[in-house]
């Protein structure tokens, strides 16, 4: 399939802004929604709407079936052993907060340590700061070097007898580098330390086989892989999910409830308190279906690679531009490009490019410590999806030059 054929499925990509064709390059923040995902959401809301896992009536069983089919799609896609390993959440942030809270209750005490990658976005840092503050534990950064590479070689020396968990992203949302998570997991596990992988970007651009990766936790959002907003997944090993206490109480997470005490439901429901976002969760099935077909499509893969290489080469060879997150081998780089321009503020560039029809992100990208690391107040980020064409990449680079000339 050509990118042009894929684009047809996304109504937003046919629109204009300020009289210019929309060029959507903010895919790392959220992808656009394909028609069939929106149809699945509206179909579930309009015709199969009943609270799941409760009533015996027809609608309730249809709604429950759709919800569980979505869970099975996720399970199969990430190759989790059982549906019990797949917890639905409202997004990657909620999934990580769940782990942080429950893991801290079970394993983190005073004087303990949690190692967090220096390039993590706030969602994989702040939850750990919160639980560590509560437990009297410490958050230790695993540094990145000037190229944006996690300095994995020192991980072993950072791990102490008090280290409980290592939390890193599969790919940084700023640097766009694929982190060597297998190596990290191997190092941590050899020392008896658990690993959480934030897959918010990884699930979009990498093949994810949780058993092969060997992580204890893998978290991601649905809205970055074409599903409805408010959907998310936590994969965790059964060993962990059996030990961890629930994060929230109420709804169908119970076994029996009495004043004397309450028992909890079996997995995965133990961690799905309250009424889940079941109408939206249904969209994970068509979304994953699309993601899978995109990743299997040779023509699309080839065009994405060409666009990525073209943009990377052009940005890195421009002396006015400083690109963060560089790699010798572009197979280790996802099409997420964060950069600064000498003499031009990221906000000014984003404002001007917006008026040229180009949507991209400016600011600290929810990763302030990383901005401090590189001594900047913010960056500009262009993030591509398989539906972005070479023509769009060329237009973006031409407009970027034009915007720079207006400012510098």
């Amino acid at each position, binding site marked *: 399939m050509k990118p042009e054929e894929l684009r047809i499925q996304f109504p937003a990509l046919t629109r204009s802004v*300020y009289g210019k064709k929309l060029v959507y390059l903010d895919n790392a923040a959220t992808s656009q929604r394909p028609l069939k995902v929106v149809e699945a959401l509206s179909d579930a809301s309009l015709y199969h709407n009943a609270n799941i896992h409760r009533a015996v009536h027809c609608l309730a069983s249809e709604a429950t079936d759709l919800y569980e089919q979505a869970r099975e799609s996720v399970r199969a896609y990430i190759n989790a052993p059982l549906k019990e390993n797949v917890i639905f959440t409202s997004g990657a942030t909620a999934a990580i907060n769940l782990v942080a809270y429950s893991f801290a209750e079970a394993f983190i005490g005073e004087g303990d340590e949690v190692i967090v990658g220096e390039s993590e976005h706030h969602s994989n840092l702040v939850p750990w700061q919160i639980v560590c503050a509560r437990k009297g534990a410490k958050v230790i950064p695993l540094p990145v070097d000037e190229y944006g590479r996690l300095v994995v070689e020192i991980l072993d020396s950072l791990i102490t007898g008090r280290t409980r968990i290592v939390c890193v992203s599969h790919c940084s949302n700023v640097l766009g580098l694929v982190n060597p998570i297998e190596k990290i997991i191997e190092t941590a596990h050899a020392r008896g330390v658990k690993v959480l992988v934030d897959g918010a970007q990884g699930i979009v651009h990498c093949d994810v086989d949780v058993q092969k990766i060997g992580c204890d936790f893998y978290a991601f959002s649905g809205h970055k892989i074409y599903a409805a907003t408010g959907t998310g997944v936590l994969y965790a090993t059964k060993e962990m999910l059996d030990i961890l206490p629930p994060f929230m109480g109420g709804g169908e997470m119970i076994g029996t409830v009495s004043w004397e005490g309450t028992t909890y439901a079996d997995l995965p429901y133990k961690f799905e308190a309250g009424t889940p976002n079941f109408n939206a969760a249904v969209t994970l099935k068509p979304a994953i279906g699309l993601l899978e077909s995109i990743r299997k499509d040779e023509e699309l893969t080839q065009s994405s690679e060409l666009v990525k290489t073209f943009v990377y080469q052009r940005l890195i060879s421009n002396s006015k531009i400083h690109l963060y997150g560089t790699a010798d081998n572009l197979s280790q780089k996802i099409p997420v490009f964060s950069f600064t321009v000498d003499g031009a*503020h990221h906000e*000014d560039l984003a404002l001007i490019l917006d*008026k040229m029809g180009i949507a991209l992100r400016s600011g600290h990208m929810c990763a302030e410590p990383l901005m401090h690391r590189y001594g900047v*107040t*913010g960056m500009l980020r262009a993030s591509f999806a398989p539906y972005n064409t070479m023509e769009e990449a060329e237009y973006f680079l031409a407009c970027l030059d034009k915007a720079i000339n207006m400012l510098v």
Partner: protein
Amino acid sequence: MYDEWLDKYEYLIELGKNLGDFPEEKKTEDRLIKGCQSRVWLDCEVKDGRLFFTADSDAIITKGIISLLIGVYSGRTPEEIASDDFSFVEQIGLKENLSPTRANGLVSMISTIKQLAQRNV
């Protein structure tokens, strides 16, 4: 529509470039306007019962916007500024098409100018 906007930006960039110097030592936390993506500092002095503003920003378009605002409000009495409805911002088309985050920046600039005026009434 597009060219019209670029013209506006060109104009704001010019305004920003021409804004008078703002001393480094005045770039303090308490002069920083919260709610903008870029950093904007605003200072005000009272002379003969009138307010005179100076400002700076690390982003040039924002600097142009604040320059426009203080150009309009500098030299007026605190009472005038405090009771002004700032409708000129909409009249010149600055507010339209600004997304919430950016509008917040503009809103924060306006509310800081108003607060400074109220403090001096």
